């Protein structure tokens, strides 16, 4: 096999000196393998040209991040601060009141003299009147019972009279034929109402559909108009970019 890979590649990419080129040309007149290989690789290069990356708007920009100011450190409030005298006095009163409530303090000044007592254990001195109302509450007078019974009787009477009134209102019994006729009438009325409702509903659906179609058409037309506007804007933008590229390229060549 002919070992001329580097030469073939050089020839393929036109990267040989004039002498090397002539020499390889002469070689190919006698070496069919190199000649065919070169033709095949030329075709492969042509195929490679068909592979293109997707064309997308990249819009890459390098931007500097804004560095925020360091956070302010707020001075801490001192744990103990000066307080005015009335504040201290109010606090003292509160503490005293709480202590009094807890101790259940009792101060008495009567014929027996001045007495101060604390604590909760005073059951022996609880006055008898405290328990008395419970005892009297049980004793209901007989007159109340009589009034209650009378009221119940009145209620029963009124209920009976209203029940008999209802029977009167229902009137005499209808015959079977009349019942069938009434039922048929009711069914007819119901069907008629139903048909009216369905017709109205259908009309409403048709109107809604028509309205939605008109809205969609308007939206599509608006979208097409916007798209047309965008396309024109993009063309203008691409033209600007091309001009900018030409300017940059021209500067680099200088």
């Amino acid at each position, binding site marked *: 096999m002919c070992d001329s*890979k580097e030469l*073939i590649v*050089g020839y393929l*990419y036109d990267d040989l000196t004039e002498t090397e080129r002539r020499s390889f040309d002469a070689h190919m007149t006698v070496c069919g393998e190199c000649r065919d290989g070169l033709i095949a690789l030329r075709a492969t290069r*042509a*195929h*490679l040209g068909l592979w293109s990356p997707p064309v997308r708007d*990249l819009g890459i920009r390098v931007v500097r991040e804004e560095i925020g100011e360091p956070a302010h450190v707020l001075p801490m409030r001192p744990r103990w601060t000066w307080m005015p005298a009335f504040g201290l006095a109010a606090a003292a009163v509160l503490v005293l009141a709480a202590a009094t409530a807890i101790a259940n303090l009792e101060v008495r000044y009567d014929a027996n003299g001045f007495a101060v007592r604390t604590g909760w254990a005073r059951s022996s001195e609880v006055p008898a009147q405290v328990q008395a109302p419970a005892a009297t509450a049980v004793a209901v007078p007989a007159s109340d019972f009589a009034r209650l019974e009378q009221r119940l009787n009145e209620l029963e009477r009124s209920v009976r009279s209203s029940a008999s009134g209802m029977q009167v209102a229902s009137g005499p019994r209808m015959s079977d034929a009349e019942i069938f006729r009434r039922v048929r009438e009711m069914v007819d009325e119901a069907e008629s109402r139903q048909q009216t409702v369905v017709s109205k509903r259908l009309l409403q659906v048709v109107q809604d559909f028509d309205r939605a179609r008109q809205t969609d058409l308007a939206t599509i037309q608006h979208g097409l108009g916007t798209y047309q506007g965008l396309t024109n804007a993009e063309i203008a933008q691409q033209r600007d970019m091309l001009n900018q590229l030409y300017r*940059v390229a021209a500067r680099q060549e200088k």
Partner: protein
Amino acid sequence: MGGDLDSFNQLVLRWERPIFALAYRVIGREEEARDVAQETFLRAFRALPGFKGQAKFSSWLYRITLNLCRDWMRKERRTPVSQAPEGIDIIELAGEATPHETIEQMVGRKELGRAVSKAMATLPEEQRTAIILKEYHGLTFQEIADMLDCPLSTVKTRLYQGLSVVRKQLEQAGVSSDSLGK
């Protein structure tokens, strides 16, 4: 500093498409290629004070891009894919249409492009990179050798081998040199 940024963004505008194209062809994924392109410019901007101009600015950008692509492939442990949509978007195709080209010709061209993409995806990274840099970015053999840190002869060998594999892959896919004329 604001002026530097504006000037740099002029360069971004000039080079964003070639950089994206390089990343896309190397890793084969559009979104990731976009990320790589963004990261390339970010790194370039940060490293700009250290750029002394020994190499061409474009070569410097290409090198950063290739390093990022390599990092991405290593990290993801992925091989490049041929990312092609299932169907052909006629509207998009019409936008890329050349004058005097029929719809059939446009579709055929697109399908050939897909076949090439698939064939390229089968290549080892070094062969694929060499072909991409030479074929699509027009670098000289020496520039490619410098960029890939390998001898000139190695670059040519990689190109030859890579092109030969692509040719065979295309033949297997039923693509012949006549396909171009259709």
